[in-house]
């Protein structure tokens, strides 16, 4: 009875899991999509975007941070949760400056596709009009903080996978910003490279290659078709 010993219920379906897996990992393995942004399969967990919030035995929690537990009941695809996730994405949109029509990442952007997935059609909240610093100092990569959602994916990738520790998040509350570990604070003064893992993991157009512009035509972009576990996994592997 190995099977039932390690399984839990997700939206009414039994899902097997391996001990130690998070709810997110178990769902991913079973091909079930739970909306997420700061989670990345290759990176240490973070749990900051809160998009993956599910209800575990009636209590709210992050699917990417909570370990799967035998016998627990998890709700994810409910109108209550999708509605709240929609508000979270709207919060991210008003906090930054996200202008999809002129963003190179459009169509391949996880923030945008998650917005589509949760049915967002407007920003709803008053925009913050935050002024953030653009860093074009690097030869290959552009850092546009207007599009940064503080997910710390690049921070973790650089720390843990590249062992370079190029990024950090500094500040408090709404003043939190992605900072670069160099005396000048500029990306150009680091040994960052477009081949780094950290250069591949940004879910938005914040950390982007300079030489690609709009790499593929509308219609054939990753998210021109509805989101699924497949496209997300493809994205996670390589942008």
């Amino acid at each position, binding site marked *: 009875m190995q099977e039932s010993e390690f399984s839990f219920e997700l939206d009414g379906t039994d899902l097997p899991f391996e001990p130690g897996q998070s709810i997110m990992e178990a769902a991913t393995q079973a091909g079930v999509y739970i909306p997420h942004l700061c989670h990345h399969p290759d990176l240490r967990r973070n749990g900051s975007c809160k998009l993956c919030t599910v209800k575990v035995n009636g209590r709210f929690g992050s699917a990417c941070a909570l370990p799967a537990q035998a016998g627990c009941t998890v709700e994810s695809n409910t109108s209550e949760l999708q509605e709240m996730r929609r508000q979270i994405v709207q919060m991210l949109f008003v906090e930054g400056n996200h*202008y*999809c*029509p*002129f963003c190179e990442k459009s169509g391949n952007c996880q923030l945008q596709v998650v917005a589509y997935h949760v049915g967002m059609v*407007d*920003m709803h909240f008053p925009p913050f*009009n935050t002024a953030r610093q653009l860093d074009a100092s690097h030869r290959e990569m552009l850092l546009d903080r*207007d599009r940064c959602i503080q997910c710390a994916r690049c921070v973790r990738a650089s720390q843990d996978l590249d062992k370079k520790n190029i990024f950090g998040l500094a500040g408090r509350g709404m003043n939190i910003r992605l900072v670069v570990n160099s005396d000048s604070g500029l990306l150009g003064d680091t040994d960052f490279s477009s081949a780094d893992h950290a250069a591949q993991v940004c879910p938005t157009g914040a950390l982007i290659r300079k030489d690609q512009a709009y790499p593929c035509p509308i219609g054939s972009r990753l998210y021109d078709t*509805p989101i699924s576990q497949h496209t997300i996994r493809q994205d996670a592997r390589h942008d």
Partner: protein
Amino acid sequence: MTKPTIATCSLAGCFGCHMSLLDIDERIVDLVQLVQFDRSPLTDIKHCSEQGVDIGLIEGALCNAENIHTLREFRRRCRILVAVGTCAISGGVPALRNRIPVEECLNEAYLQGQGIDQPQIPNDVELPLLMDKVYPVHEVVHIDYSLPGCPPPADAFWSLLTALLEGREPSLDYPLRRFD
């Protein structure tokens, strides 16, 4: 039975949304059967009729004083107001200038830019003043529905309008939901 009325209007936008509306092709004929067009660049009527219209579609962002007056007048006359397109919803392409202080914009355009003959910031009272930033419409009036896209696909217009005319809550299918 009088037909429901529709009005459309543009602020700081490129008329792309209006073009996209026309892209519903021959369904425009069906639409005209269903509704009466009031104020619109398509009809060249400049103000909504006194008794108001049922559905107003507003395209474009707010970048100057005139946009504010236009939007407010339009809002007053529309029972349902729909923000159409990225510019109306988030500021869109006009909001590119939000990175740059407005005084620098004017400086570049009228005083210091290349090839300027008689440098002077225009001050004719007929000219609407620019606002410090470009704003989305929901900062200034209440918006009932939004149709995203740059421009929204023609089918999205169709889907939204038919829903509103039939008294259903509009909801866009995934391919019709897009921000670019």
